[in-house]
């Protein structure tokens, strides 16, 4: 085992067979330190990823059979939409990037997710998870096991589950979660197994998913926006391992975690609010080889053995209550830890109520999760689960309550569902204002208790429906689709397979909308799905969506230049298309390898894209396909690109150029730019270096080893600018820099009285600064205050007002209320930001804070007669 232990050991987990689920919990290893098992999760190492972007590559050996109107471009668009679902978590720093199609022969070295298609036997829908890992390392958030490679396996025959179906899309979102390091949860989130999952295509992620991914890959400051709950679960004073602890809010949120071997838990990523917290046993494993609830048990790295075997105990609400009515909510505040939420649980033999799923009937098709419209739909749902129904009747003593205000929503009756008495029907009463959103269901029987987070979702309208879709054109001849339907709104999104159309207009009287379709291939048949803002979709009403057929057009052809780059190169590539109209909203390029990362693209013409790419120094040599996906239009060139041997003597420009004055990446005409250049000889001097900007020589202002500072011409156009460096006859590959509009030019800084701030008239904490600027958005009537920030001594100030200066249409005055407490000093560094672009910093004279009051003198004790004076 020694050699194997030294090599990369891979485990694929989370086969999507399991009924039961798992808290937001990564694949975990326990590292023994100081005699204590400390958890180390599996996750990708963000520091090893270019721009914190994790490539996902899709096998070019796609499915072999399709449902009617389904296709490979459609399937790709759904995979991309599923990846975007995780990318839209603002508190996660990791971003999934489409890496193109890959061939089985392509060797790849860099971290990635591979999506491939395989012949899966009945009973296995999909599988995904980490495959290859490195040895544990310690990062800023603690020890972790770096994932090197994850795979996601989808079936090769998808005719029974078309790519436009909710099932397919949510499966991919779920499996991508596994590939990123998330295990199953029990909170009806997307990482719950399909049986209890309560998210939809319109809203694929729930709070527990957001917490899970954010805790694995947190953005700076994430922990200050959420709180945590800590405590311990004990049974007979012993810690209970792998007890599930769940926090539920009345407004439908749920976050969870599992306990460690000593019974302690730390539930992080909890949005501020009030929560009822309960603990429960994980349901039994449904598959051999899994832990309870089909979780992959944590592994003790010292022994290589799984650590598990939790005990079965009675569900308990905090503090120590079996009933929700007797439970007490705990308050969670941002950046704070709510401690001491402990549970002393009682043993029980086995679970008799678990794994419940709920369904509703917005139309003639049952849908899950259960959406109910109290004002126009059927006011009941149907439930199934282990122990819910006995002998074709509800389990003895079965009672269901809805967490929240009973006057708004309450259960009217629990009875057999007559068409199929193995199911239980739950009827509801609704008040005049039942509200909308998720509601948790608490179920009790004579033998057990169970909570189904988000078991019910209240809405105030029926699902959107598309009744017709007709092709039109706008004034410019661009294609439009006129859609008529029911329960559409201005917030309704229209999907063309997995790509969003752009809503051009919505008529609230007729319910009609016009939508610009995303790019699509000639004759492509796109399935139209309407997504409601409330999480419902038109697929709730029909599994046969209407279609839009793209007009005939010549097939797109794309070429990439250069066709080869050496390993380790940082360079611009140019992508030219024939029969293309590249749209930055939709187009993505990929080189079919995680070793070639596209860092940024510029769409300079409908048929021309410039892109900065980074080739990994560890990239294996060889050929790979190049592919471009734009909406539903797909173009690929096999063997179109090659990685060649490294060129260590060729100068290499990093695209991470910055303005040395502002220390910011925003570059502007007339401003300086510092280029980071590698592979320069040690003995080189400033006179040996030439810089070219858009083919024209640029003056080298400063040279330090590895750093070349030059000036951007004042007449430089905004947008892409191509830079090259030549040293002693060796020229670098070109790299694209982005030239931004100039920053705001600060004309003068006044106090609230309109007097110039100076050493003689210092700015006062709490006063309002009046900053007059020029050079921004000429012609704009007003500038929104939100576009401006003023940082003084590190403190961020928001503009309260902006106004055009009277008589001077190109000048504006901004008002910034200063903080009443400023850092110490009589002159503080200040920077004005406009749309995130900094102006050159300046020193702001401020009134220094008063010195702290001195300690009052304590009078001496008078001495009595006969005592000597001190």
């Amino acid at each position, binding site marked *: 085992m020694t050699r194997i232990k030294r090599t990369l050991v891979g485990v694929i987990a989370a*086969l999507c067979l399991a009924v039961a689920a798992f808290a937001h919990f990564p694949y975990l290893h326990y590292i023994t330190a100081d005699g204590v098992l400390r958890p180390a999760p599996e996750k990708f190492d963000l520091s090893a990823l270019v721009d914190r972007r994790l490539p996902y590559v899709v096998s070019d050996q796609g499915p072999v059979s399709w449902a009617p109107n389904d296709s490979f471009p459609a399937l790709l668009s759904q995979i991309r939409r599923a990846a975007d679902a995780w990318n839209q978590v603002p508190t996660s720093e990791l971003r999934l990037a489409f890496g193109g199609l890959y061939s089985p022969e392509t060797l790849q070295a860099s971290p990635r997710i591979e999506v491939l298609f395989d*012949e899966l036997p009945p009973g296995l*829908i999909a599988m995904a998870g980490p495959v290859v890992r490195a040895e544990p390392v310690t990062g800023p958030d603690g020890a972790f096991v770096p994932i090197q490679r994850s795979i996601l396996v989808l079936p090769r025959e998808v005719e029974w589950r078309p790519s436009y179906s909710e099932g397919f899309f949510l499966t991919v979102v779920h499996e991508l979660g596994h590939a990123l390091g998330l295990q199953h949860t029990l909170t009806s989130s997307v990482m719950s197994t399909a049986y209890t999952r309560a998210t939809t295509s319109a809203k694929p992620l729930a709070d527990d998913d957001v917490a899970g991914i954010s805790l694995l890959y947190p953005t700076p400051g994430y922990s200050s926006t959420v709180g945590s709950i800590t405590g311990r679960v004990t049974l007979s004073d012993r810690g209970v391992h792998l007890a599930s602890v769940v926090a539920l809010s009345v407004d439908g949120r749920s976050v969870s975690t599992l306990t460690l071997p000593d019974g302690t838990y730390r539930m992080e990523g909890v949005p501020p609010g009030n929560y009822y917290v309960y603990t429960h046993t994980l349901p039994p494993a449904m598959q*051999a080889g899994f832990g309870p609830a089909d979780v992959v048990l944590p592994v003790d790295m010292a022994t290589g053995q799984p650590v598990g075997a939790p005990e079965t105990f009675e569900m308990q609400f905090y503090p120590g209550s079996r009933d929700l009515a007797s439970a007490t909510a705990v308050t969670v505040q941002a950046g704070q830890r709510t401690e001491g939420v402990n549970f002393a649980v009682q043993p029980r033999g086995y679970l008799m109520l678990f794994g419940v799923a709920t369904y509703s009937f917005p139309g003639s098709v049952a849908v*899950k999760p259960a959406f109910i419209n109290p004002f126009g739909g059927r006011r009941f749902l149907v439930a199934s689960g282990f122990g819910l129904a006995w002998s074709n009747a509800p389990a003895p003593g079965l009672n269901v309550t809805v967490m929240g205000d009973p006057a708004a929503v309450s259960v009217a009756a629990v009875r057999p569902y007559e068409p199929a008495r193995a199911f239980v029907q739950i009827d509801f009463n609704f008040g005049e204002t039942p509200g909308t959103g998720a509601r948790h269901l608490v179920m009790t029987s004579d033998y057990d208790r169970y909570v189904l987070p988000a078991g019910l979702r209240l809405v105030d309208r029926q699902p959107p429906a598309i009744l017709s879709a007709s092709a039109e054109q706008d004034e410019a001849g661009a294609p439009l689709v006129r859609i008529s339907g029911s329960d559409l709104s201005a917030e309704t999104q229209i999907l063309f397979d997995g790509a969003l159309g752009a809503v051009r207009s919505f008529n609230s009287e007729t319910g009609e909308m016009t939508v610009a379709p995303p790019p699509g291939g000639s004759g492509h048949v796109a399935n139209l799905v309407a997504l409601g803002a409330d999480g419902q979709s038109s697929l709730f009403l029909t599994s046969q969506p209407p279609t839009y057929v793209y007009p005939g057009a010549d097939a797109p052809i794309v070429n990439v230049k250069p066709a080869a780059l050496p390993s380790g190169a940082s360079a611009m590539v140019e992508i030219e298309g024939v029969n293309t109209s590249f749209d930055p909203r939709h187009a993505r390029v990929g080189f079919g390898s995680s070793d070639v990362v596209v860092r940024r693209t510029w769409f300079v013409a409908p048929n021309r894209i410039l892109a900065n790419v980074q080739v990994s120094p560890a990239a294996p040599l060889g050929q790979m396909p190049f592919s471009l996906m734009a909406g539903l239009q797909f173009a690929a060139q096999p063997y179109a690109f090659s990685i060649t041997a490294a060129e260590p003597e060729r100068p290499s420009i990093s695209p991470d150029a910055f303005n040395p004055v502002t220390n910011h990446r925003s570059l502007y005409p007339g401003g300086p730019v510092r280029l980071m250049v590698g592979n320069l000889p040690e003995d080189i001097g400033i006179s040996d270096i030439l810089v070219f900007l858009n083919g024209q020589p640029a003056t080298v202002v400063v040279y330090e080893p590895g750093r070349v500072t030059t000036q951007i011409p004042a007449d430089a156009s905004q947008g892409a600018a191509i830079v090259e460096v030549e040293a002693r006859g060796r020229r670098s590959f070109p790299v694209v820099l982005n030239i931004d509009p100039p920053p705001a030019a600060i004309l003068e800084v006044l106090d609230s009285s309109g007097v110039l701030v100076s050493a003689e008239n210092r700015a006062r904490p709490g006063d309002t600064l009046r900053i007059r600027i020029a050079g921004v958005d000429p012609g704009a009537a007003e500038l929104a205050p939100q576009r401006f920030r003023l940082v003084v001594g590190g403190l961020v100030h928001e503009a309260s007002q902006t106004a055009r200066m009277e008589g001077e249409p190109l000048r504006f005055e901004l008002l910034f209320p200063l903080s009443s407490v400023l850092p110490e000093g009589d002159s503080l560094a200040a920077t004005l930001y406009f749309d995130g672009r900094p102006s050159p910093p300046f020193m702001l004279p401020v009134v220094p804070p008063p010195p702290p009051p001195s300690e009052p003198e304590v009078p001496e004790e008078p001495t009595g007669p006969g005592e000597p004076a001190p």
Partner: protein
Amino acid sequence: MPRLAFLLIACAALVPGTTLERLTLEQMAEKATAIVRGRVVGSSTSTWNSIISTTYTVAVAETLKGPDTQTVQVSVPGGVAGGVRHSFPGTPDLASGDEYVFFLWTGKSGRTQIIGLSQGVFQLQADAKGSPSVLRSASTETMLDPATGAVITDTPIRMPYSELARRVRNALEGRAAR
């Protein structure tokens, strides 16, 4: 029976979001291309579609479904190749020399796999009386105690091999086993 049809139709088009397909014994019998009782006599590993798989050679003692054959090659994800191990929780751990009942599915590629991974494997052991019985490691069904009607725990149970074979035959003949 409009409401029954309502739900049956609903089940057929049911459940946006399902990634799981839980199969009963009868469903596995229907979907299997072969059902055999046999002993594992050998194994080898290979890489299939970027995934390391182990192929077990099973000496067939009895065929309940499918063509009669002396041996069958069963592919299971997981194994060690080139110093790299892929392991898949939920895949059966087949020991050489042990006897099992396999519900197998052969796809168009010709590769034979186990239905639902562990769902389609039953270990064959002798009971206290020496009669063959199968160990069912997991159940997808709610089980009731016939005496009390109470739900009994979802723990592994033993089933006489003859009972399993009978249920398989009934399923294949289109009759409900229970």
